[in-house]
């Protein structure tokens, strides 16, 4: 809709960019951004404006403000991974996905906050502090939560944004940009999307280039897309997907961008409900929402069947082994020599390495490196790493069998419950939290499948909850069609951000339209 507004001249790219920038300022307390690229953004907007004036915009993304998670390389703009290790690091090159966005005329407004090196599920463990969920400041949450939970407090406790792409989710949710890039290794795009009430797409592994994404787990990482509606996600996907000669794991086949039907039809589809996703700790609210959603599909004529993915329960432990092993390997390059933090300790190369890594990485990163190296030791390799890989294959085969039996899309919850209050969340350590929070999402990464979070409803406390659809590999069109149909059915409410309203009436007017498609 904004794209159309730009084309029709109702608003100029510069105006749009300025409004986003001023919203970023007024929502600074959310801590969604690590770097705001005001100057370059305005320059890009100006360029875009010239193109519009000439009547030659580059495409639907031209002039659209976007944000990028701070683990994607951006030439000339700091890329920190929310770590002391890369504080002040300015990359000399753009990640392929960033380059593609810029080539389409998108306006980069900033780099978003995350857990250090994307290790976490709350966006609470980065060196720049936690991201606050915009819904903490919504009228909906305040009305439903404040009087009950903390009658003596004026304001209810703020809740986490989810993670690790919490900054991106919060940025999209609070209208400071129209789309944001996240990354998804075990659920890092879908989890914050669920908590912040936005759409979070994790495409099939190999569909989008990882070149320039600072890796967490190379064999599972996928750039994720966060938007306010499913159509937007499809558009961004269309501009990012396809083979990249710089990433040998991207598919060779040409990717055809697609548009979703206006009136999606699910009546001929078969929706699978994997029983193993009825996991311990699943809130009754979400369980109810899940079966309500299944009923919706049923009443629309779709076949809804219960299916089994028997190896699901082993997935999270194996994910942990494979994840930490690759982390140990990927983090080996941060030694303070070529780039990044270097300790002042210089007794020997070894002591400099040790001090650099101790000072540069937080406890979470160091703990994962330690356990990863343990799993990779010669005496443990077979017992842990190889076993985990075998189970990974079994998990992928589970999905293959279900899809082979005629199921088109799987429907599951995205999270066990709505977002936790920050004070509650940090009571548990990162490892425990990640194990709980990734439980419903990481299996799709293990199998490389596309999955999407669609906001479904508000919880009793007025916080968003979402459901996840998992599709066949490279069948994003089908997956997104189902997601769009569901989105239309549930009519997820718009966030009512009083702060935003107070600060910026004009911008809110336009951005109320939310989507740019």
């Amino acid at each position, binding site marked *: 809709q904004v794209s159309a507004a730009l084309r029709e001249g109702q608003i100029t790219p510069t105006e749009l960019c300025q409004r986003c920038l001023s919203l970023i300022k007024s929502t600074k307390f959310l801590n969604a951004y690590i770097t705001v690229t005001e100057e370059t953004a305005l320059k890009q907007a100006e360029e875009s404006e010239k193109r519009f004036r000439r009547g030659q915009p580059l495409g639907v993304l031209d002039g659209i403000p976007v944000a990028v998670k701070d683990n*994607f*390389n951006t030439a000339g703009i700091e*890329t920190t*991974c929310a770590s002391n290790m*890369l504080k002040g690091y300015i*990359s*000399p*090159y753009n*990640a392929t996905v960033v380059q593609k966005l810029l080539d389409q005329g998108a306006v980069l407004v900033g780099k978003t906050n995350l857990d250090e090196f994307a290790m976490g599920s709350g966006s609470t463990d980065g060196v720049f502090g936690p991201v606050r969920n915009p819904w903490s400041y919504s009228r909906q949450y305040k009305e439903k939560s404040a009087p009950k939970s903390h009658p003596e407090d004026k304001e209810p406790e703020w809740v986490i944004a989810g993670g690790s792409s919490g900054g991106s989710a919060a940025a999209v949710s609070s209208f400071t940009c129209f789309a944001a890039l996240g990354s998804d290794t075990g659920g890092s795009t879908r989890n914050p999307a669920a908590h912040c009430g936005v759409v979070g797409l994790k495409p099939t592994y190999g569909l989008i280039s*990882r*070149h*320039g*994404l*600072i*890796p967490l*787990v*190379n*064999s599972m990482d996928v750039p994720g897309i966060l938007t306010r509606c499913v159509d937007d996600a499809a558009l961004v996907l269309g501009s990012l997907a396809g083979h990249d*000669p*710089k*990433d*040998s*794991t991207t598919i060779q086949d040409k990717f055809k961008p697609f548009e979703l039907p206006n009136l999606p039809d699910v009546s001929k589809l078969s929706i699978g409900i994997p029983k193993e996703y009825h996991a311990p700790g699943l809130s009754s609210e979400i369980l109810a929402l899940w079966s309500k959603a299944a009923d919706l599909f049923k009443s629309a004529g779709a076949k809804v069947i219960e299916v089994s993915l028997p190896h699901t329960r082993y997935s999270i432990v194996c994910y942990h082994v494979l994840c930490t*092993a*690759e982390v*140990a*390997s990927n*983090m*080996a*390059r*941060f*030694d303070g*020599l*070529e*780039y990044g933090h270097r300790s002042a300790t210089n007794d020997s*190369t*070894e002591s400099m*390495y040790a001090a650099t890594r101790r000072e540069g990485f937080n406890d979470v990163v160091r703990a994962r490196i330690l356990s990863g*190296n343990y799993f*990779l*030791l*010669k005496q443990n*390799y077979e017992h842990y*790493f190889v076993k985990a890989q075998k189970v990974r294959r079994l998990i992928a085969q589970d999905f293959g069998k279900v899809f082979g039996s005629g199921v088109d899309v799987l429907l599951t919850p995205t999270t066990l419950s709505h977002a936790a209050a920050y004070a509650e969340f940090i009571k548990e350590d990162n490892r425990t939290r990640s194990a709980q929070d990734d439980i419903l999402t990481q299996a799709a990464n293990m199998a490389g499948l596309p999955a999407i979070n669609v906001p479904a409803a508000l919880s009793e406390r007025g916080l968003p909850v979402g459901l996840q659809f998992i599709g066949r590999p490279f069948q994003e069109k089908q997956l997104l069609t189902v997601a769009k149909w569901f989105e239309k059915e549930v009519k997820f409410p718009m966030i009512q951000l009083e702060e935003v309203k107070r600060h910026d009436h004009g911008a809110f007017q336009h951005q109320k339209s939310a989507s740019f498609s």
Partner: protein
Amino acid sequence: MAAAASRGCGGVWRFAWQRGARGPVPAPRGQRAVAFNARGGVVQPEKCGLAPWVPVVGLEIHAQISSNSKLFSGSQVQFVAPPNSLVSFFDASLPGTLPVLNRRCVEAAVMTGLALNCSVNKKSLFDRKHYFYADLPAGYQITQQRVPIAVNGSLSYSVCIDNKMSQMVTKTVRIKQIQLEQDSGKSLHDDTRSQTLIDLNRAGVGLMEVVMEPDMCCGEEAAAAVRELQLILQTLGSSQAVMAEGQLRVDANVSVHHPGEPYGVRTEVKNINSLRFLAKAVDYEIQRQIEELENGGTILNETRAFDSKLGCTVPMRDKEAKQDYRFMPEPNLPPLILYDTKSLPANMNHQQVVNIDWIHERLPDLPSVKRAKLVEQYGILPEHSFTLLNEDGLTEFFENVVTQTQMKPKKVIGWILKDLLSYLKQHSLTVKESPVSSFLLADLLNLIEKKEISSTAAKQVLSELWKGEGKTPLDIVKEKKLELIQDQKELEEICQAVIDGQENEVMAIKAGNRKVLNKLIGLVQRETQGRANPVLVKQLLEKKLSE
């Protein structure tokens, strides 16, 4: 000659004792006599009753792939370039960069695998090998630990017995595998400023690691095997394989044991940068181990460095010798799939696939084939064919001369090996640097063939030609008046004069001592400054003496 392709080596080394008053005392290193039988027979221990030792030598050879760009990045590969001028973002391990396999490196490895009779794996895998070192920016090396690109090959090479070129034995060493891997950068330690400087120009250059089974038994064999490999790599163009430039690096695994017993504990000798040092290092290490064991000591499984100045191996104080490399599959590279004509998918872009059969058909003649062809085509001795191939460019030089002269190749080879090569060696020149071109040498040899000059005169001409003053052989012949004396009368007079002046010799000849005739021929040659036809001189002298 022993049977060709005798696998392994039965050579046996004995420890030689110097007997002193206080019992056996080991001889000083380097002076010890070593009994070694290259024919593969076991040398029986002598009366002292000492069991013989069997040395076992295996090699790990890293050959830098000759390619314009690195194994996984687009940076240039050059030997001489300003430090850190050939470094891509990937080579410097900038976060977020990914490896992209260089097709040329794969082809070079396939060629090498085929030339070494390996079976080339249609599917091979890449792994990460982790260790922290300043010139390894990523903290791991990408290599092929689980499934390498080529396995189970063999290499035939020849060694000569007792240093005689005329007695050569063909031996075979099994090739365990060839794997593709990245080279590291270079560390330069500045001890005075206690700094280490890093040059990443070499980081990420493609290497082929050739692993040779422990089928060798002495330094000479190891050096001969590596020399043959070097020739093969250079013939294929898969590596320039110049040891001095580090394009070929050899590590030797050495152990000794008694016959019939399991292999001994082995040591790894590194830091060997020439073939001569390889032979020295291996032999030294064998001696050292025998001495150690004979003295009741034990051999440690350790890495030792060869000190070329001292001519010995010393333990490397390497804390990381026992480290765990924590191998892991490289997740950013899909399996490397190769095709043959049968398995080649029809719709594949030929630019994107590597076809093993296609490469096989285009392999150039390997050194062994080239040698056989030389022997057959030119009728030269097998050992001469070895010399021709061992010197870079010498075969081409020889063949050029042969095609430009009427002289028989069998005679040409003498001029090439005795005159050209020894001159070049004396002056430390390569064939390419020779001041006398194949054209000039052919010219000169033609003068001999046309009986215009004698070979003695030809040598004089050659010594003028070395000066490289741009004169032709004919110029020099004319200038120095070296033409054969065609006038028989003139020659007869000279012969007569010599006979007249050497009464004693003439008496001796007439008494039946024919050998003295050669002295007279020599005197005639001196008189004519080599311008006389020796055959004619001999005839004339004989005729005159029998008168």
